[in-house]
Structure formats: C-alpha cells, structure tokens
C-alpha cells in the first residue's frame, strides 16, 4: 500500500468522525484533486450501475446516511450532482470527505459542479464563513474554490442518461457544445456554463425563459424533449431544486429532479432521495428522512457562545 493511499484512508477515517483535516492536508488533497480532474472531460462518460445524489449542502450526517442507505464507496458507484457546500453546518467536512473519496476511488465516484461551487456564492451562503470559523483564515476556502473550477459540469450514464446540476442552456443545445466549453474558471454570470448550473425545468411554460433566480433559464417540456432527441438521450437527471418527496419526475417521465438534503435548513420537513440506476437503466428513487441524532451519532454542538464581531 503506498503512502498516499494510506494517508487518504487515514483522512477518510478522521473525516467520517466529522473531524476537520489540517490546512496543509487540504492543500495537498486539493492539489492532487486538480491533477486528477484536469484529465476529466467537461462531460464525463460513466457506466451503470450507479447511484446519483443531488444537493447535500453541508448536511454531513445525512451524507453519511447516504452511504449507509446506498452502500459504501467503493462497493457502490456514485455520481454527485453538486452543491456540496453552503447552508449546512458541515460544508468543510462534506467537501473534504467527498474529495478524499474521489482521490481514493477515482473510478468509483464522480463529482460534478453545482452553482454553489463558486467563489461568489460561497461568500454569501455560508462556506466562506464556515472556513473562517474553523480555520481562522480564508486559505482553505481558497483551496477548495480553486478546486471547484476543475470539476466536470455534466455526466452521461451509458450514453443514455444526461446528468447535470441545473439543466439546459439556449447557448448549448448539443452535448458536443458543452464538451468544448472552457470550464476552468469561476462560474460566470451568464452563458452556457452558468445556465447548466442554474437553470430549472418549468412544466408551466414552453421554450427558454429568463430565470427568476437571477441566473440561468426556466426551460419547458418542448426544449427538453428536443434536447433529448437531438442528443440521442433517453432521460435527464438533475438536482438544484428542493422537492418535498425527495424527487420529482416531469415531462412524461423524461426528466427527474433529485434532492438529497432531508429536512433542509432544519425546517422544511422534506424527504430526500438518491437515484439508483441499474444496468437496464431503470431508475429507483431510494427515499430517506433526516437521520435521527441518536442513530447518526451526531455529537451535540458545543454550547459555548462565539459572539460574532458585529455584536462585540
């Protein structure tokens, strides 16, 4: 067993106990990750069987629950659709664990980029602040956000199921166009790279309509079916939207949304799901609720008050 693998196993073990890695180790793993990701295509070709995971947003104990329900890595192949960070308590631990698993089992786990894997968004929605709290400086945030620029933006399962965080773009209606995008950059405010991370399906309208999110588009059934037909795809699996039941299928069962953060923000009361895609390309939604604290061995957050600077 080489040193690198041994270190990774040690890191994974530590992270599974929800302990953060030292800053120097984060530097090492993000550098290695960039070396690995640079060779991956914008659109990753992957084989079934595979389990597809939607947004997890720093809900670390629910990520551990995913591995209990879906099977541990590398026994199960995984495809994560992005939004690993922001909003939950444990974005640092979540992205650290997934990065280490990717390095340890590169052919068994694929990580795509979500709209939250960006500098601008993580400075607003929690990951930046969490890195500052846990490390006392923004260096770890910098390492991870640089790594985010290397993540692939889409995946295709068995040349039949197109997987992406958000969806379609009017600027890239063919997968070949997505394959030639320059992905090694901060998520721009507009254009194809932005759209595929930000867009949402809308059963109530046709075509592409500018999204109310402030980035991306709402896309209708017509353009979705046309995209599938033109690209010889059977189905789209995407994430990016909270679903009460953990998933939703639209457009005559041609598009699925998967959401993997149960009881989102501690208040939404939603279920979560992962999508198990078998060799026949059948999709099974495995739903689950938030892991009970007693079952997840979740340590109680300490009750010491860390007064934010605003209130000193």
């Amino acid at each position, binding site marked *: 067993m080489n040193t690198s693998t041994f270190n990774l196993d040690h890191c994974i073990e530590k992270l599974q106990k929800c302990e953060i890695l030292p800053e120097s180790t984060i530097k090492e793993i993000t550098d290695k990750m960039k070396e690995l990701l640079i060779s991956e295509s914008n659109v990753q070709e992957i084989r079934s069987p595979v389990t597809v995971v939607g947004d997890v947003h720093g809900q670390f104990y629910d990520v551990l629950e995913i591995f209990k329900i879906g099977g541990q890595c590398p026994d199960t192949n995984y495809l994560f659709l992005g939004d690993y960070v922001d909003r939950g308590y444990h974005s640092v631990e979540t992205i650290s664990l997934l990065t280490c698993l990717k390095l340890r089992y590169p052919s068994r786990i694929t990580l795509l980029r979500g709209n939250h894997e960006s500098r601008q968004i993580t400075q607003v929605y929690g990951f930046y602040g969490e890195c500052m709290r846990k490390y006392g400086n923004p260096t770890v945030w910098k390492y991870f956000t640089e790594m985010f620029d290397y993540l692939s933006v889409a995946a295709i399962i068995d040349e039949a199921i197109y997987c992406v965080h958000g969806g379609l773009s009017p600027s890239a209606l063919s997968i070949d166009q997505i394959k030639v995008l320059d992905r090694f950059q901060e998520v721009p405010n507009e254009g194809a790279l932005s759209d595929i991370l930000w867009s949402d399906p809308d059963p109530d309208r046709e075509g592409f309509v500018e999204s109310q999110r402030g980035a991306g588009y709402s896309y209708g059934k017509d353009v979705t079916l046309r995209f599938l037909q033109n690209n010889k795809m059977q189905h789209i699996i995407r994430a990016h939207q909270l679903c009460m039941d953990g998933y939703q299928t639209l457009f005559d069962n041609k598009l699925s949304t998967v959401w993997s953060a149960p009881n989102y923000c501690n208040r939404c009361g939603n279920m979560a799901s992962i999508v198990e895609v078998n060799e026949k390309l059948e999709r099974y939604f495995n739903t689950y609720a938030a892991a009970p604290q007693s079952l997840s061995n979740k340590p109680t957050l300490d009750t010491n*008050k860390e007064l934010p600077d605003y209130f000193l």
Partner: protein
Amino acid sequence: MATTQQPEATEHQHFGVVEIKDLENHKFIKPVKVVTNEDDIKKFLRSGACRDLLEYIQTLSDKIKSKPNSTKTQNSNEIKNIVSMLNEISVYIDNIPPLAQPMRYGNKAYRTFYQKLLDNVEELHKHLLPQSMHSSIIELSSYLMDAMGNQTRLDYGTGHELHFVVWTYCLRRIGFLKSTDEEDIVLNVFTTYLDLVRKLQRVYGLEPAGTHGVWSLDDYQFIPFIWGASQLIGNPFDIKPASVTIEKVVDQYYKEYLYIACIKYINTVKKGPFHEHSRDLFNISGAASWQKINTGMMKKFYDDVLSKVPIIQHFLFGSLISFSV
C-alpha cells in the same frame, strides 16, 4: 498609529424622510431591477437610495426603543386602514386553500393567491389612499406585490421583506403616513405584515429564498431582529440577551417583543436544541446588551442583505427610491 475606539452612539441624528412636495406634478414610474453585479452593488451602497433606506430603518428602530408591542400609540386612521387592508389580504389565504396534490415544494395554490392580489392591488390602494395620491399606485403596487414573495419560484425571503419596508417608506414619502405614525409602522403595521407572511409561508409551504441555512438568523426574516432588539433596550422585565434561550421567558414575552416572537416562531418550526438549529441567534445571545445587538444587527443587515448581489439584484427602484448605474 493606534486609534482609540469611539464610544458607541446610542442616539442617532435623524434627518427624517423627505416628503414629495408637489405630488400632482411628480413623475411616478413603475419600479425596475437595476443591480446585476458587484460593481453595481458598490455604487448602490454609496447611493442616496441606500443611505435613505438605512436612515429610515434606523429612525423606526429608534422610535420604538424600549417600547413593547402593547405601547399606547397614536394609531391614526391611516395606520388602521393599512392594518385593515393587510387583514383583508390575509382573508384571501383563507379562501384559497392549498391544493391537495404532490408538489415539488411550495404549493401552487399560492399562485392563485398571488394572482388574486395582483388583480386587486390597485383597487386596494385606491381604497386606502386619497384621490390626490392615486398617481403613486404604480410604484406602491409593485412593492406590495413583491413583499408577498415570488409567484414563479414559490418562495419568500429577506428581499421580499425589505420591499415591504420600502412600501411603508414610500407611504411616508408621499405624505400618506407622517412622522407621528412611525412607532405604529413597526408596532401595528409591520407586526400585522409578519403575521400575514408567516401565514403565507405556512399555508403554501413557501421555500426560503436565498437562505443562508444554519448560518442565518432566520430563513425568511431579518428586519424584526433589528427593531425587536431596539424594543428590548432597557426593558422593565430584566429580559437579557441570554434570556432568549430560556423557553419560559420566550413563552411569557413573545407577544410583547418582536425579537422574542421571532425566537418563539423559530422554535415552533425547527426541531432540536436551540443552539443547534439557530447557531447564529444562540451566539448573539451572548452579547453584553440589547443596544449592542441592535447596533450589530444594523451592521449585519448592511453586510448580509444590502451588500449581496443575490438579494439586491431583485430590488426594485422607482422614483420614490431611485438609483441608476
């Protein structure tokens, strides 16, 4: 060179809301979105619009300092009519129950509610305002509609709340509300609005728009924490910042204080210990005084709401609160 820290100001100099002098000839316009990027935000933060908005929020904060909700106020006819109008909107919700069908998140019956309000918003304003102020409805309607959330995304957040504050600011600008109404804007109008939007959130399951999750004060609101902290300055019940973590105190005083009402509401919708589900509020409860919390909340509001592209990109600018890039 070392600088000595200035003592914290407890009173602010107020310049007051500048009322439109000549309403008849004032050109009201439909408010539009202007901000799209970080450069726009920097300009906005230096603008008169931002300064006036902060000044208005601060003025209201100071007006209700040490005053619980039950404070005897002027409660003018204008205030009563606004409260009555908001209660009328609340009845729409009762008449439009959520649809019993599987949903993504956010019940589509909310769109029916929103459309009903849209169909009636002009009439509601005509009923509220004297004829001489009807030309302002084009602006007021936009702010009130957006204060109810987003009908496309079925969500609600701090940006929508901000538009309600702007709606009341516009009513001050056109002279419908006076400086003597400012206590009531918080203690009667805003409290009624809070009840209304919480009802919307509950009944239609609106998604929290752009929430910071566990790193936010609350997934939907911000302003009541500023004004609520001001109410608690020098309160006669010896309610200290740390008291908000004590269930008995919360149950006893939530009807009197906005801040405590927020805590009470959060405790009903979130599971588990307070220090886990509301870490930020728990940490803030370690502050030395309500004055520190009030001042800190204003700074935090500036940073977390007014300075953020994802929120201010949706902010509407018209003639009453104007800004252009």
